[in-house]
């Protein structure tokens, strides 16, 4: 019995119908963060809808760094689902997050690309922005162990 049993049918449906939101909604923390996925020009764009609970420093107000880390990791996992044939749930090995600019009280978008797909390890880069994609608020590099 594998860990992926609950997500496999949702993943299969997402790949055939292009309906990715049920897969996102099946993950409690993704729901909690207010995540949604849209495929635009073949790219999976993850949106974290602004909510006051996501704030870190209320005097600015700026989003908590932990929410951006979670968004970037989620975008990285979704690119693995979207781009790969295999349906195994990727296991994260590590992530490095660069906080580039203060993220304000707005929706935040993120997308990821696979930089290297090895036999066992995949390297992914992710980027997050708000109203201007050319001025990202955070970027991340992550490695995943792929268990088929």
């Amino acid at each position, binding site marked *: 019995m594998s860990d992926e049993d609950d997500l496999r049918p949702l993943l299969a449906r997402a790949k055939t119908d292009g309906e990715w939101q049920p897969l996102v909604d099946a993950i409690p923390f993704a729901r909690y963060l207010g995540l949604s996925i849209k495929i635009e020009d073949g790219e999976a764009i993850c949106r974290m809808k602004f909510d006051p609970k996501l*704030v870190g420093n209320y005097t600015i107000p*700026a989003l908590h760094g932990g929410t951006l880390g979670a968004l970037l990791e989620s975008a990285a996992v979704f690119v693995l689902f979207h781009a790969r044939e295999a349906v195994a749930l990727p296991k994260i090995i590590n992530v490095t997050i660069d906080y580039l600019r203060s993220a304000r009280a707005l929706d935040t978008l993120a997308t990821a690309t696979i930089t290297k797909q090895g036999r066992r390890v995949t390297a992914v880069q992710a980027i997050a922005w708000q109203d201007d994609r050319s001025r990202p608020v955070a970027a991340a590099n992550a490695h995943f162990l792929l268990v088929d």
Partner: protein
Amino acid sequence: MSDEAPRPFDRDRAFPIVQSAFRDMVPFNAALGLEVVDIAPGVVVLKLPWRQELVGNPRTGVLHGGAITALLDACGGASVFLKMQKPIPIATLDLRIDYLKPAAPKRDVFARSECYKLGRSVAFVRAIAYQLPDGEGAGSSEPKDGDWVATAAATFMLSTKGDSVMGRASRGEK
């Protein structure tokens, strides 16, 4: 406040101030349910109580990696404040996390962070996320490596703008 000589660390005075600023004044810390468990100079220990909303894998109940990231970021930032004599605003510059093993489901996760170097512009932090066997409480000393779930290194910029929630809390302001 600004011309005082360095004060010795007074844990009993600092603990309620840290608890207050940490949860009441940082919305996402409160939303995650983070609790300050212990403090020491430059050191903070937090608890992230397990709950269903924070789960990544719905079948196993294992917490989402992003919840651990948020725990480590919050813990790291708090430990920088515990290193300062006078609280000033900070912002995370970078955060690197190595995930050693998935957190066991339906169990709390703890994090201990130490700010081991406080420069004039940059603070340097190391942190460990861990779980404990039943019946063991979290203290301020380093956890046994068999209990580690993730390790982290982070840097924080010491800002010159705005106000810090810790500064407000220590002045008794909201």
